[in-house]
């Protein structure tokens, strides 16, 4: 057990996986000598050499496309997209190539690859560095989308993603990279992809969230429970596709109320799918409309207003109040 930040946990996991399996290679912009703009790959090139930790030209479609080519020929590439906002450039290679090669070849080929990307707001970046675009990939069959909310989860999920035999988009909440430390076992452990984590049980209301907003939701709930006679369940999805229906439904069937929190814009986002799912399979358990506390339906805004645009503590608190008012 070592106490470490999420970025340290990611770095450690990459190193361990590269040691464990020499088919694992990393590629991306500035991941070599520079160790990545957030230092996720710090020191890896020094250990594994320029052949296994590769700085690429600036070409996201090529990064993902080459990874597809590598993965179908025996390697297990871990590609980095410097910020998730740049994945639009690689959309075909993600959604039409990586995601479909197993299908296209009727199972003859498969692409065991991971695409890592930092994402999420609150850190005053230039435009298109903070966008939460995970919803696009929820609607792209053949991809798994995983996002950790803590150092411990990051290690177990990333290791599982690298060993998965299908393409995984692994999204790292920038804001949490160095937000806190926690004990992380050095030893090997895996967290199952597609399995949500009930962070805290509760009876009155379920909050469903993932990635960057998890610690925030935890805080808000702590504050509310301190002052009000309320018991709130928190689900950290960990994987948004495939989504863990059982956990969501079991919780909402118990509490009858749900608030969904994510930074992605509201319309057509992951919250829509979660709400529709509950509607489909647990409608009669609901005692209140499901509220989505999310980014607004605008492009991600400039730094000076992002804190109000994002689902912050007051907005989440207000959402909880509203759901409980029914």
């Amino acid at each position, binding site marked *: 057990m070592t106490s470490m930040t999420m970025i340290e946990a990611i770095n450690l996991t990459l190193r361990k996986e590269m040691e464990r399996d020499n088919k694992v*290679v990393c590629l991306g912009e500035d991941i070599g000598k520079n160790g990545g703009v957030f230092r996720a790959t710090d020191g890896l090139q020094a250990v594994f050499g320029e*052949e*296994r930790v*590769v700085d*690429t*030209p600036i*070409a996201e*479609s*090529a990064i*993902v*496309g*080459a*990874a*597809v*080519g*590598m*993965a*179908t*020929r*025996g*390697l297990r*590439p871990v590609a980095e997209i410097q910020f998730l906002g740049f994945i639009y450039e690689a959309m*075909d*290679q993600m959604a*039409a*190539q990586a995601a479909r*090669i*197993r*299908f*296209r*070849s*009727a*199972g*003859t*080929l*498969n692409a065991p690859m991971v695409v890592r990307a930092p994402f999420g707001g609150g850190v005053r970046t230039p435009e298109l560095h903070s966008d939460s675009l995970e919803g696009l990939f929820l609607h792209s*069959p*053949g991809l*798994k989308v995983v996002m950790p909310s803590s150092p411990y989860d990051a290690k177990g999920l990333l290791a599982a993603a690298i060993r*998965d*035999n*299908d393409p995984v988009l692994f999204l790292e909440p920038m804001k949490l990279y160095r937000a806190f430390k926690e004990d992380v076992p050095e030893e090997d452990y895996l967290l199952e992809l*597609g399995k949500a984590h009930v962070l805290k049980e509760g009876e009155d209301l379920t909050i469903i969230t993932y990635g960057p907003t998890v610690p925030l939701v935890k805080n808000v709930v702590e504050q509310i429970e301190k002052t009000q006679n309320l018991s709130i369940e928190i689900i950290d999805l960990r994987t948004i596709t*495939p*989504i863990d*229906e*059982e956990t969501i439904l079991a919780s909402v069937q118990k509490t009858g109320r749900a608030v969904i929190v994510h930074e992605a814009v509201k319309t057509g986002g992951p919250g829509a799918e979660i709400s529709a799912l509950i509607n*489909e*399979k647990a409608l009669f358990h609901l005692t209140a409309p499901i509220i989505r506390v999310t980014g607004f339906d605008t492009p991600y805004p400039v730094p000076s207003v992002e804190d109000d645009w994002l689902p912050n503590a007051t907005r989440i608190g207000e959402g909880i109040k509203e759901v409980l008012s029914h």
Partner: protein
Amino acid sequence: MWIEPNETEVNRVQVLNETGKLVRTYPQICDEELLGLYKWMVQARTFDQRALKLQRQGRIGTYAPMIGQEAAQIGSAFALKEQDWMYPSYREVGASLVHGVSMENFFLYTMGNLQGGTSAKNANVFPVQIIIGAQCLHAVGGAWASKLQHENSVSVAYIGDGGTSQGDFHEALNFAGVYKLPVVFFVQNNHWAISVPRSKQTASSTIAQKAAAYGITGIQVDGNDVLAVYSTMQEALKRAREGKPVLVEAVTYRQGPHTTADDPTKYRQNTEVESWLEKDPLKRMKAFMIDRNIWDEELDQKEFEIANEKVTKAFQLAENTPNSKTEEVFDFVFEQKTKQLQEQKSSIGTEGVLK
């Protein structure tokens, strides 16, 4: 100072001229190879003509004929070694056959059977790529994997003249140059991208010269001269094997429509088509072989008959293959079906509605 447009001189490699006469020193190609090349061209053409017919009869789906491009496809594929990989577009039936894909497989593909995508099961050939340019990046990644795993395998991406306009083409050639990958980009410049002529696709006067942008080797070859293509591709593969990627432009012509859904009379002159029929790749090679006394009309006719039978058999096999079932589609999304996919698969009985 000023690099003026199209100042690079590009010389097209040719071995046989349009009438099948040698125009330069004969490359080291033995008679067996000559016969092999020609026979594959016959098979490709025969397959192609049958597929067109079958499409018109509604027995297979949309088909992209390769007629006219046999020399480019056969000549290039014939130079590959077994461990080399091919990354085709949708028009590569000729090249694919040579590298080990069965005719049956190709028929299944055109029939919309899931099994049509399984080329890689028995041959080092990626499934047909529909997205223009995407396969170039897969070839780059494949070449990279083979380099890191010391496989002595070259990856060859097949793409058309129109495809060179895509961003993915650019990114692929650039990566190939930077990492010195064992990859060949084989461009069949067949003069048309559906209705857009080569001259409107790019202002560069050749496609071969685009190699200059990536610090890699470029070469232009007469794509209707199977001997020129074969010998050039041998050299290109040799360079690629040494980590020197090559861009090959094979100048050829799409004699037929873009696909069975296309009507080329809308956009191109018949006189142009006719002038290219004169340069037909099979005609030229046949003349050369007859001149060389290793071929005659009788053998020729027989060869077409053999090919015809082969195609017939392949189509029968394809027709006797069970149709894909809707249930199967859920099996190829992930290694393990997710809960949702399991549920959807079992909902087929209730018309996809979960009960």
